[in-house]
């Protein structure tokens, strides 16, 4: 672990950990973070259910989340019997989940916890505020599978992206797709916002050469415009990185036409972690894999299996 990166991680109040796929090593990263941030009061939750001791999909043994005494965590009521920390029930959030209401608990001993938090980003935001009001110094959100809330600033200030061999058997594919996600997460924050307009995108671009996209940005929206040349040197602004649903190919084409893509609101990508071992039986060479990812992204890359310095 590089000391500057550690300092950077410590400075981010709310960190979310997002995986490219299952078994990307998210829980390992979370445990590492908890170790690294030892001495601080942490608030811990997840988007939806995570932290099972065995992966329900692949059957592989998964590491549990081990927290020190004093940690605050939010989880569904039915998960509490599966947490072996000594529990102080601090408050009931009123957020319902299929596993019962989300309860905030203070660990009065160290131990294992199972997380199943809210699945709606607005509830996560409220929960983070609650953690801080209860004395948490930093909040970690286990981002679960999928990228629905990927990098939404309303949820977290910083994002750690976890990628690994489980994503695909071909290392080039893992590296390329990871690089694409990083590129989206790293989009520039818009300094100014294009004027709002009711005009169709093509007309708006013709007059202003810039536009704000209210919903998702998709290939089918942009390909005709790319062909017609309407996008040349234009500036497009989306709400946050989760709204960008472009293929790597379209993304490259945009860059070639000089199109700038910006976000209104985005969390910062802090680092990428790699897990060279797949849950499905294959393994990449750790050094080659790490080096390949490092070549493709502009943030620090860490191997989750490596011992920390």
């Amino acid at each position: 672990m590089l000391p500057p990166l550690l300092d950077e991680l410590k400075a981010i109040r709310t960190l979310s950990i997002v995986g490219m796929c299952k078994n990307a090593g998210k829980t390992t990263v979370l445990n590492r973070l908890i170790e690294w941030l030892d001495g601080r009061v942490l608030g811990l939750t997840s988007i939806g259910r995570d932290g099972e001791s065995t992966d329900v999909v692949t059957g592989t043994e998964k590491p549990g989340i081990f927290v020190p005494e004093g940690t605050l965590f939010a989880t569904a009521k039915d998960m509490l019997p599966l947490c072996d920390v000594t529990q102080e029930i601090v408050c009931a959030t009123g957020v319902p989940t299929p596993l019962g209401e989300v309860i905030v608990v203070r660990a009065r001993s160290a131990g294992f916890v199972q997380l199943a938090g809210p699945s709606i980003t607005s509830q996560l935001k409220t929960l983070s505020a609650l953690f801080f009001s209860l004395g948490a110094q930093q909040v970690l959100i286990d981002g679960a599978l999928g990228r629905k809330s990927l990098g939404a600033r309303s949820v977290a200030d910083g994002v750690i992206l976890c990628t690994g061999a489980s994503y695909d058997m071909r290392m080039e594919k893992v590296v390329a797709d990871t690089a694409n996600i990083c590129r989206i997460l790293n989009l520039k924050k818009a300094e100014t916002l294009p004027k709002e307009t009711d005009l169709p995108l093509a007309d708006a671009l013709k007059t202003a050469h810039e536009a704000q996209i209210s919903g998702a940005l998709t290939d089918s929206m942009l390909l005709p415009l790319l062909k017609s040349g309407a996008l040349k040197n234009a500036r497009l602004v989306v709400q946050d990185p989760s709204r960008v649903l472009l293929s790597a190919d379209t993304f490259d084409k945009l860059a070639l036409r000089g199109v700038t893509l910006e976000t209104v609101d985005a969390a910062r990508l802090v680092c990428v972690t790699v897990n060279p071992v797949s849950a499905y039986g294959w393994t990449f060479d750790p050094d080659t894999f790490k080096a390949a990812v490092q070549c493709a992204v502009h943030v620090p890359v860490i191997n989750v299996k490596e011992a920390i310095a």
Partner: protein
Amino acid sequence: MISIGFDDRVKIGLQYVLDSLHLSCPFGQERVRKLRFYAPDERKELETELLNTERTAAHASALRDLFERITTVLCQLKDIRGSLKRLTEGACLDSVELFELKGFLLRIAELGPLFDCMNGTVHAEGIAFSDPTGALNVLDPEGTRSRGFYLPDSASETLRAIRAEKRRLEQTLYAAADAEKDAIRAARTRVCALEEDEERRLRAVMCAALVPFVPPMLSDADAAGRLDLLIRKAQLAVRYGGVRPEITETTLELTGMINPELADLLQAKGRAFVPVSIAADRGAVVITGANMGGKSVAMKTVALHVLLFHAGFLVPAKAARLPMLHCVQMLFDDAQSMQSGLSGFGSEIVRFNRALSEVEQGYSLFLLDELARGTNPDEGAAIVQAVTQHLNGLNAISILATHYDGVAEFARAHYQILGLKNVDPDAIRTELSAPGADGVAVIARHMNYGLYRVEGKADCPKDALNICRMLSLDPAILARIEQAY
């Protein structure tokens, strides 16, 4: 017994009033959802409730801040009655349930003194909170009174020893070499299981100790619901004006009553609801007037007031004298009758029969809006005349709205919609002649929906002809109409 379906609640504007209350706690919300109408043999209870509401309303503005503080606490109350039921069944509650019980008790502990403070001025009767100290001492033996729930090490010597061992193993684990870790982890898992068993035993002891406190907790939940509704009733009375009805044996007298839903609706359009007054006693009262909606509004507003009164609300009127009733039956124009398979008229008669047999069970209020409106005027008039005569002999207050001729003379009293009675036709004509004037809107503005009592035999109102004149109907047609009158 008074019962009223959701459709009728909506139609008379009762649902609007109930929805505007915004109760704070689940127990108060339940009281509104299952609104209780006091029966004639519960006169004492109703009187108490009405007096409580009147006293609370009288101090509503002076005690505004206190009400605010009370409702803030009420808002935090959760419905713990499921857990209380499980307690009496001997169940061992989990720590989240015990957390909720503790939260409830802490809030009751806050609510008690606040209510005492309020009641020093208001003197409401029949609401009281118990002292939750006993139950709190069970749930919080160390007396921290923190919001959280935690079984402290001091709960038992066994628990203290187990937790000390758990802590020792964790510290060993950090320092241990990898080879020893598995053995320590296994030992730790065993200790965690012991801790869980001991905690469950302690919770079971706690639950047994809580059983005697279940009745006072249930009564506190009920008191919280009553207090919640009382405050909202008082605030409603402040908002729309409210008077405590004097309870009579048979007479119904409502003076200057308004219908909050329509009043708000009209106010949004920059107009005002004209207060309506009506008096009735055993027998039939007939309301006549051109078909402009005023008759229905008057009847619905009567129904609203009578029902609010039976639920212990002050009524939005200047003065009210009301009897306690066995039931309230209303037959309003009902789109649902179309779905029953019968014709509109057929289903109306079926509903009338059903309502009549209910009304015959005790002193009741029977409201009929435009009975037999679908039939031809000759037959319709004959039917309504016969019904009016029959209702006159019934032990009930019946109010019928009709625009059939020759019904009023069979009634005990006759009311008419004021309509355009006192309006200067020249003034309206001047307004109508203004360029771009909307004739219908001008007439609606001058229409008086108030009621007046007709003494002796009265002419039919000639508003339809007046309206034709004002809206400049073809003079040739007008001349023919005038000939026919």
